[in-house]
């Protein structure tokens, strides 16, 4: 099995599996971390998992050099996701800092003033 993995070429599925793991890790991190920064990290992981999928769908190597999939669009979308993730991180960090300024903590469980 191990030898198989080492000698067989990788395909899109491989990437998707890694992406799924990253995604789920991120989602669970978001669900379990009480630290706002931790939640942010979870988001980054989720985005990365998605990005991995995009790149995998767009890669021709993973299809044995043949065309297909989403082509360059995958990389382009990944690029946009990365850039927008940077923007999101900036705002999220600003929000976290503000949250900290107002609550003296970054525990997201403390920020439930707007609950119903």
């Amino acid at each position: 099995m191990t030898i198989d993995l080492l000698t067989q070429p990788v395909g899109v599925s491989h990437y998707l599996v890694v992406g799924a793991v990253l995604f789920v890790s991120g989602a669970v991190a978001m669900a379990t971390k009480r630290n706002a920064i931790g939640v942010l990290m979870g988001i980054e992981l989720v985005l990365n998992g998605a990005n991995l999928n995009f790149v995998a769908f767009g890669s021709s190597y993973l299809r044995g050099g043949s065309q297909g999939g989403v082509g360059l669009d995958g990389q382009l979308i990944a690029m946009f996701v990365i850039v927008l993730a940077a923007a999101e991180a900036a705002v999220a960090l600003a929000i976290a800092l503000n949250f900290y300024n107002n609550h003296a903590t970054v525990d997201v469980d403390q920020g439930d003033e707007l609950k119903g």
Partner: protein
Amino acid sequence: METAAINWHSFFFLLFALVACTFAVAMLLSSNIVRMAFYLVISLGAVSGLFFLAGADFVGALQLMIYVGGTVVVLIFGVMLTARAPFLRMRTGVAQWALAAIVGGCLLAVLLQAALSVDEWAPPSMVGENPPVSNTYTAAPLGLGVLGVRVDQLDEEDATLRNGMSGYLLPFEIVSIHLLVVLIGAAYLARTKRRPKEPTGDRQETVEPMISSGK
């Protein structure tokens, strides 16, 4: 049958995939914010390696530059905001962990099922061949793609696809403006305002002026 030669592409894929997944899970399990950030950096770096392996040089470099660099900033914030007690931990209840694990497991199962169930996504049958890892040209096609010129679809039969759709120029511009707005907005949000009374704040106060000196 002779054992096939090792496929370096697969080898490095496995290496990076393992690193990425391991450290993602490590980040999930760690409760020290700085270590979390460190694990995250490693995981993201490994993902960028995966990008390189998939022939997406530019995106990989972008990932390294922005994500990993950006995570450094996250790290700094982690340090700053948890600096009151040096290694502050915020415990999550066991029940919540269990719930999250169940739900996350379901999600993972669903995703894996989806990932492995499409034939088209299965590995190509090129036993022992190493697809080129490097020397790919992705920056120029990406740039042209943004402009709407698709070098990957020159032999596309559908003329509307081939002759260029509108490209991503407008989204590109929107994103740049968006970034600018976000920068300004973030600076606005994070500006120093009145502060609540500090319960124990010597460390906080020593850190604060240094940050504000970065204005």
